[in-house]
């Protein structure tokens, strides 16, 4: 069989799906059958999730077996033709974006006023991605001003729209 891209990742996913499917089946099997309420046994709550657990486990097994025979244990076929430097840069951008989004949605929202959380997030996000070490100060100041303007507009308009127009109490 020809080596597939993502073969090793598929093997790991397949194994995870098998374990997940079996766990889902076991949990469904252990669900109350509600005999004390004299319900029809065909309407037991665990029936459908149990069947889905079996199907997911079977699909995971097929995926794992297919990957095992398609180069999961050998050298991996690259998905793109990016250079290592380009891949590192992409990973850095992804990590930065994920961390900023997580901090905003989990740490800031719900714990400080929404407008302030939005102001900080939008400003820091734009500045973090547009910051360049060897940039001249006038250009840098312009970018900072634009980031601040967008942040102020977002922090002003979005809460106004939800709170005043849609009467939603923001976190």
């Amino acid at each position, binding site marked *: 069989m020809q080596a597939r891209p993502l073969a090793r990742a598929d093997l790991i996913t397949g194994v995870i799906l098998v374990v997940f499917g079996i766990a889902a089946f076991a949990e469904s099997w252990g669900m109350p059958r509600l005999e004390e309420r004299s319900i029809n046994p065909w309407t037991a709550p665990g029936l459908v999730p149990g069947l889905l657990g079996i199907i997911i486990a079977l699909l995971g097994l097929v995926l794992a077996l297919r990957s095992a025979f398609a180069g999961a244990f050998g050298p991996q076929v690259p998905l793109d033709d990016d250079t290592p430097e380009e891949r590192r840069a992409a990973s850095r951008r992804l990590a930065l*974006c994920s961390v900023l989004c997580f901090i905003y949605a989990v740490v800031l929202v719900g714990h400080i006023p929404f407008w302030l959380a939005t102001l900080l997030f939008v400003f820091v996000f734009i500045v973090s991605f547009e910051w360049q070490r060897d940039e001249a100060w006038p250009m840098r100041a312009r970018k900072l001003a634009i980031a601040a303007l967008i942040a102020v507009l977002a922090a002003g308009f979005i809460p106004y729209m939800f709170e005043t127009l849609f009467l939603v109490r923001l976190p």
Partner: protein
Amino acid sequence: MFEGLGHLFAAFETFANFTTVFNVCWATLVGITIGALPGLTATMGVALLTTLTYKMAPEQAILVLISCYVGAIYGGSRSAILLNIPGTPANAATTMDGFPLAKAGRAGEAMGLATTSSMIGTFIGIFFLAIIAPALAEIALDFQSYEYFWLAIFGIVIAGQMCSFDDALKGWIAGFLGLFVAMIGQEGIHAEERFVFGWSELSGGIALIPALVGTFGVAEILTVMRNRAAELATSVVDHVVPRLSDLWHYKRTIVRSGIIGTAVGIIPGVGEDIGAWISYAAARRASKERDQFGKGSKEGLCAAETGNNAAIPGAIIPALTLAVPGSAPAAVLLAAMLIHGLRPGPMIMIESPDFVFQVVWMVAMATLAMGIFGILLTRPLLKILKVPRERLMPVVFVLCVIGPYAITLRLFDIYVTLFFGVLGFILREMKYPMAPLVLGVILGDILDKSLRRALVLADGDLTPFFFRPISAVLWITTALVILSAIPGVQRAAARVFGWNKA
């Protein structure tokens, strides 16, 4: 027939006012902008607008969402032509010939053709929406639990197969995972909690809007920020009003693509992107200039843009009549209808027949607005494409966070959005299609209740599942789809029927 015309005129009266025109205009414009910006998809746009319109009157809210949907699928052609990046997945086939045309200095011509093809495609779809929806609703009245069970399985299997071109297995895994997600929370027959693990917020289940905003919004933001920035092919635009001779020359392709797009749209969960690809492939096969496809063929561009827009009314047909969406944006539309107290499904032609025809008008008005804005605002839209993603994405993320929260006022829904964003990103990176996952979340409840009710009705006897006429059609088609995805069966079929690989 005459009763249908009566409903059609009655439906028009609902929208003969200034508010309607205003809502159609701004929502279509928002849709075009969302579609044009890489990273903002039609599904995300409709989902975010659902959170912004839930205090509106139901007809006006659905009108806004449909306008955004139509605008976004069309708007994606702008970035496909100018950036070689489809603004929405539906415009992937448009890049094949749109971008080469732009590089050859014919961007305006390409955008003009995309506009008119999209309009014609949507109107072909609207024609079938008006005809097929009432008929399908009548057929669906005969559906019992057996048929709904098979419809759910059929939807997942065919969406899994068609949405992932070369790896149906991954499509099916995504679909069945979606079905499983729908099992979380109180089940619909005995109100028994499942997979809640003492977490009270899970007992209500996973709401569709946070799951969709996460899968199509947050995941898309992560993808866009990870990728390299795109560059415009050209900033110069030639004439944007297409020549009638071009359209007349490709009339067969346009009509064929419109019909294919609508038919693909009707298939549960399959949607606009596949509508465009199949239309494109059919056009290439039938074309006299097939060697030009992929190098800047106007016929290829017409086929792709007609196919994806025709799939919009197509995808609305099963959403309205079976409560089974034909595409991911139609899934959000379905959820929005439920939020607004409308009840899509087989009873719709009995309970609210006017609404079906109101939807026909909504799509028609949005299509007109799309055409007018598409032609008039070519140059301003070019400026939108120059907005750096670094400045746009944080604002979009704020909307992704606060939108799902605004519906239920639960911080928990923000965490659900984030979870599905990360899950969607990982699955997408590993080449799992997202449409079957979303379809699964919607169909899970139907599958769960239908299977158990059917087993009670038949007292555990499985024969009605296989021998009732509509059930038989559904399960045989499902089985054939599964068999056709198995490489050994494909090879055997190729040997028996003498197909070659090309």
